[in-house]
């Protein structure tokens, strides 16, 4: 029996976003675990947020499933980052794509791009909790799709107090 508490498996995944030129973002996702090592990089055009290039690289694959036909990943070029993108990317790359991990890493890059912009938005949130609450309430009123998207924006939270649910959204 191995020594208790020795790690039997570990995974590290890093996603980063940078802006190399005023009209371009580059997002990269790197994965390393006991069974796999891989990298995906996407280039995103601004201001449309459309994917203009995708590259995937398998450095190690103990399962041997991520082989052949990886160029289909490039079918994600042209997809605009935003709601529904994951489904579109999966559809374009194809259900038969041999490496689901790489597709997931493209999605992680896209989420990274969204968070890159979210971070910028959050710079404007006041430190004072009441003012912060009001800031987020205004955000929801402005974009009602955010209503009930998470616990903080759910009916009953202090942030959504006084906000009418969008039609079709029944508080539970």
């Amino acid at each position, binding site marked *: 029996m191995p020594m208790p508490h020795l790690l039997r498996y570990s995974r590290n995944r890093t996603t980063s976003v940078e802006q190399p030129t005023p009209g371009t973002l580059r997002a990269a996702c790197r994965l390393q675990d006991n069974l796999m090592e891989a990298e995906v990089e996407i280039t995103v055009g601004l201001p449309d947020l459309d994917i203009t290039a995708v590259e995937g690289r398998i450095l190690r694959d103990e399962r041997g499933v991520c082989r052949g036909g990886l160029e289909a990943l490039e079918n994600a070029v042209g997809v605009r980052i935003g709601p529904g993108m994951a489904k579109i990317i999966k559809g374009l790359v194809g259900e038969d794509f041999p490496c689901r991990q790489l597709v997931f890493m493209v999605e992680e890059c896209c989420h990274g791009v969204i968070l890159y912009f979210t971070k910028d938005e*959050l710079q404007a949130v006041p430190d004072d909790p009441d003012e912060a609450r009001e800031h987020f309430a205004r955000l929801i009123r402005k974009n009602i799709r955010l209503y009930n998207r998470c616990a903080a924006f759910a009916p009953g939270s202090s942030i959504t107090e006084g906000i009418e649910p969008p039609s079709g959204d029944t508080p539970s």
Partner: protein
Amino acid sequence: MLGFQRNKRVGIWTEGPHRLVAHGILDDDIYGLEVRMVVDPATREVRSVEGWWNRWTTPDCPLAAERLQDAVGVTIDDEDLARRLQRTVGRRGCRHFANILIECCHSAREAIDLLRYEKARESAPGLTFRGFLDPSRPPESAGGAAEAARPPAATEASGPHRTAALRPEDLTGPFIDLHVHTSPASPCSSAPVDDLIREAVRIGLDGICLTDHNHLWSPEDVEALKQKHGFLVLRGNEIITDQGDVVVFGLERDVRGIARLEDLREEVVRAGGFMIAAHPFRGFLTFGVDKLGLTPEKAMERKIFQYVDGVEILNGKVNAEENRFAGEVAGGLGRVLTGGSDAHEVEEVGQYATRLASPVRNEQDLIEALKTGRTAPVAFRREVSDARAEA
């Protein structure tokens, strides 16, 4: 210069034979959170989850941690795992918690594979990891590895008198998906029959059997489909019995409601048909083999196995452990072994299929081919379709 960075780390360790612990950290420029999740390696079920924030954004974000309990009871092999966790933990709690939980579940799955591989190597030191994962490995060798993740109580019984499964390459007949559902004939399916057939043709299957729930296709409709697509379409029926679901071929009666197994058997024998126990252990791991005390030998005594000709040992709607267990039981009983996708969506057809030993043009040919017992269940999409595409 970096504008945003997210780091996720998962570490997994064991605490005795029944607890696999996953610790996940998500740390990025905006959020910092951690989860600690316990998985039962035998049932592959999430037993407990706790989580906490280190950094967050809105004053109400801390409310999200309690929704982590929605993940308790989830099976890490669930094909729909990511969507399920996003809908529950993500939508009601926080999508970043869901994100790291999904990462933990996937990692736990891989960790269990590694543990089983280590166990398998004790008896086969030369076994490679890819060789270990090869689904065409005979069930008896796979069984030993599977037992690595089971509690001792379930592994104490001696092995049954197993019959080795034939490999697809041992046979020359057609690959047929013996178990598919179409819409609207099966209310639970969303696969229109024409789309399903087109997909079956595309991936290279030689035929499919329409086995809608308690619904018998008319010979005329099926003949029309055959003509339209130039593809072998056969009629079957998945009948709900008091002992579980049974796929039946050769019965010209539209059975409604729940059938008594003995009655159904009598009728099928009279008709010269063939009965297959469908996904006989679906969901049994949910309860845990240890709690049920179920061994292959004990399972062989189940009534259903006395009344069927064959057992579906590869089914697309159950997890690998349940399929493997079915293989052990069917092999021990010497029943005919079959595979079928149990497709309810177009893209699921052909996940599993059965290779037969002789040509099949109609249901009668199929029944005769099945009765020879020379069948090879196969993970068709992965092992045949993808391999052909690569070649």
